[in-house]
């Protein structure tokens, strides 16, 4: 089957995870090498998880940690009594 942008995009994650058979992998690589649009697409596809990972990172506040530990401690001692 002839490779094009749509077929390449459909297999992009499989390709990046190394689970595409060799022949198909070579067809994808050959297409992308000659396609500026696909190269641009791959850049933004790969950037997407990182951008969202950074944007949604969050840690419990000091107060939240204190509340968590207090709740766990109360339950543990309740269990033990």
């Amino acid at each position, binding site marked *: 089957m002839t490779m*094009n*942008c*749509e*077929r390449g*995009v459909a297999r*992009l*994650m*499989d390709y990046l*995870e190394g*689970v595409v058979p060799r022949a198909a992998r070579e067809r994808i690589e050959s297409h992308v090498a000659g*396609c*500026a*649009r*696909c*190269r*641009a*697409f791959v*850049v*933004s*596809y790969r*950037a*997407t*998880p*990182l*951008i*969202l*990972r*950074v*944007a*949604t*990172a*969050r*840690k*419990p506040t000091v107060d*939240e*940690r204190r*509340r*968590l*530990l207090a*709740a*766990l401690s109360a*339950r*543990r001692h309740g*269990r033990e009594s």
Partner: protein
Amino acid sequence: MGRGPARAAKSDEELAARAASGEDAAFDALVSRYQERVYRLAWRLTGEPEDALDVTQEVFLKLLRRLGSFRGESRFGTWLYRVATNEALMHRRAKKRRPAESLERFLPGFDSNGLHRSTPEALRVPAQAGERLDRERLAGFAMGAIERLPEAYRVAFVLRDLEELSTEEVARTLGLKSATVRQRVHRARLMLRGYLGHLVEENSR
């Protein structure tokens, strides 16, 4: 002095076994090791700090109750992520949120020959979201976008791409085949990628 052995213990499974035999310091060590990860996962799946805290608390209480029966049948981390995911989803469902508008329209477009419709410049735009959008606004948009994914995609994407589990770990956590996880994560990435591009363009006008 009782904290020494727990701190020296390396594996989660060993800490769980010690905690099950009543060693408080071992349980504290597990909480300390995992509280940020559980909280962050819960936050990403519920979108509310208060819900994230409730879920985190419930997950560790559940761990406390099950310590005695925990036999390391699956790796501790996998077990904890599974419980945390289920708790977060139950919490979320209980809130009966309004169905959000789908992100389907942000999927990439192709012409009748299967070629990208957009220019290379336009296709690269989503990658600029981190630099071109204000950090706080991006955080809000990001949570809103993840919220709009269908649940099956959202969970797979959060575990795989945001919590950085491997595809195989996500598959074990959710009881799915790896191929199914890849398909869901891929679909989520495509929609979110398109949405990031839309945000950049909208905020550049």
